[in-house]
């Protein structure tokens, strides 16, 4: 009969196993080569300053009759890099959309530097974004386009949609903050006492590292400790390790935010909640969400700790659209792009919704 293991024996056995895993992990990490990112083929079709607009090559295997005619432009956030949309073959929203017959364009804002520190929200909403959409309209021969805004890019897209509704056939917002002053919004609470003017005047552009440090602080024990301990469970699985490293690269590959853009966004959107209040003005033009009259599909994540659902859901009440739909994805801010269920659900729902409105 086996003698039950004492707590001390169990502890020392566990520690021994843990050390073995760490050693194994270090060996596995040392053997990992360069991490490849992206899977779908694309071409740069327009550029302006540091911005590049890409068109993804439509998949030949999708029959003509299954294609959605109106092109879709993805407006990503300025925080982090847009390759999250096409991280790897089995984790790619863009690949999923291409497989479902969409003509996909993606705006890559690039890495802003000191020369961009005085770019404001109006430069994006009244300059870069319209230029990209005008280009797509000309190139595709479709006077109207579909716009998909992601996170902060969704907020910019809403501003655009309110100012230029005639250009958009449909608008999709993903994990997009609209009302920044809801009780769950920890980032808003943290910025309440921050002198944003002084911050922007001092740092110039808002360093990506500083933003990352802030995001890590939202869940410090999970994000700086447990995450790496959990990695040891999959360290001997090369695919899992590669996926982890790819995500790690994306998380910390953070461009700086243009200083003035950051200052305006934090002051007007976050602190003063002007978009939701209907008091936002860009270059003398009032941005009113009731002018967002095209069909709207609002996708948010139920466990999003960065953009809580309560920040996204008010769009239904504020938008002027009579054709509003929403989808509450059961997951977090990142899981909505990379989780297994997201690969099945999100592109399917987007494609189905657009197809119905592609007359």
């Amino acid at each position, binding site marked *: 009969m086996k003698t039950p293991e*004492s707590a*001390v024996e169990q502890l020392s056995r566990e520690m021994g196993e*843990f050390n073995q895993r760490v050693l194994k992990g270090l060996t596995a990490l040392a053997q990992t080569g360069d991490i490849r990112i992206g899977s779908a083929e694309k071409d740069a079709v327009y550029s302006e300053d540091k911005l590049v607009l890409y068109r993804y090559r439509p998949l030949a295997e999708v029959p003509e009759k299954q294609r959605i005619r109106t092109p879709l432009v993805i407006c990503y956030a300025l925080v982090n890099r847009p390759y999250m949309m096409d991280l790897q073959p089995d984790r790619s929203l863009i690949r999923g959309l291409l497989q479902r017959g969409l003509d996909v364009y993606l705006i890559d804002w690039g890495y802003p530097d*000191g020369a961009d520190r*005085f770019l404001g929200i109006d430069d994006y909403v009244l300059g870069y974004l319209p230029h990209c959409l005008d280009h797509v309209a000309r190139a595709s021969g479709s006077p109207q386009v579909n716009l998909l805004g992601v996170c902060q890019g969704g907020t910019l897209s809403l501003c655009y949609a309110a100012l230029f509704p005639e250009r958009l056939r449909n608008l999709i917002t993903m994990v997009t903050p609209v009302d920044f002053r809801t009780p769950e919004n920890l980032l808003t609470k943290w910025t309440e006492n*921050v002198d944003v003017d*002084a911050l922007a005047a001092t740092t*110039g552009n808002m360093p990506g590292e500083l933003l990352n440090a802030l995001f890590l602080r939202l869940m410090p*024990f999970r994000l700086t400790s447990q995450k790496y301990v959990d990695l040891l469970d999959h360290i001997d699985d090369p695919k899992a390790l590669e996926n982890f490293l790819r995500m790690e690269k994306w998380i910390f590959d953070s461009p700086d935010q243009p200083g003035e853009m950051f200052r305006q966004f934090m002051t007007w959107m976050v602190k003063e909640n002007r978009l939701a209040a209907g008091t936002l003005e860009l270059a003398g033009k009032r941005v009113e969400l009731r002018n967002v009259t095209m069909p709207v599909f609002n996708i948010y994540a139920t466990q999003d700790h960065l953009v809580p659902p309560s920040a996204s859901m008010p769009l239904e009440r504020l938008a002027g659209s009579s054709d509003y739909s929403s989808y509450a994805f059961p997951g977090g801010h990142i899981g909505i792009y990379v989780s297994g269920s997201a690969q099945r659900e999100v592109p399917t729902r987007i494609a189905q919704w657009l197809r119905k409105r592609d007359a």
Partner: protein
Amino acid sequence: MEDSVENHASWAQQWIEQQRALLELAAQTGSSKAEGGFEQVNELRRQWSELGKTYLDGLMQMAQSANSAAADAPGAGPRSSAQPGVEVFEAWKAAWSNSLVQAAAPGGWSELLTSTPPLGLFREQIEAWRAVAAARGDVERLEQELAAVLRRVQSDALTLLAEQVKARAATAQPVQGFRDFYNLWVECSEQVFSIVAHSSAYCHLQGELGNASMRLRARVQKVIEQGLRQFDLPTRSEINSLHQQVRLLKQRLAVLEGESTARTIETAPARKARKRSR
């Protein structure tokens, strides 16, 4: 098996106590660090005092030599016991030491150092450096306050952890080993931190620390730019000014381009009509 569960609870309790002791130690180190600034000021005061005394001793020796020389000079009168120069310097030295003792009262010396307006050729530089020192003091103070809050978070998390370990020991799911215990610790820490992080006191403190850090950075930048100008090197302020000018020019150009395009569109039918009539 029950023994094993009890043992788990016991080593978990030991670990929690050990962490508490470490937190207390960290709190002590933190408070002595906070006092470090005052010690530095006192040390500076001591050095000033020494320097002043040495200087006055030197002057007194000079006065003594002068007195001796005068007494030994041909035609000098009878030696007097009074040495006017020496008495003056003795009085001066005593006054110097007394004033330093008074200034050393809590906050006295540091207040004196920071509130006296700088004078002379380097007044601007001194003022800039003094502003850096003040901002640095603010950052250090707020960092200590934040560290104290975070220590409280850890301490409360340990209390919650101890309760959870006990509660689970009483159920069918006692803590199963170190990893399980670690995950529970993370869970408790996040729970406690989340409550603190949403509190207005924490939001205020974190915001203040951010603002103080920016003040420090801005003041350091000012000092650096002062130095760069001495060597006719470009500064960030100059580049900012150039970028702003470029941006304004680009905006004006875009407006002009827009107007030009609109004019072309407006006049196009008239041009076509003229062509047709030719």
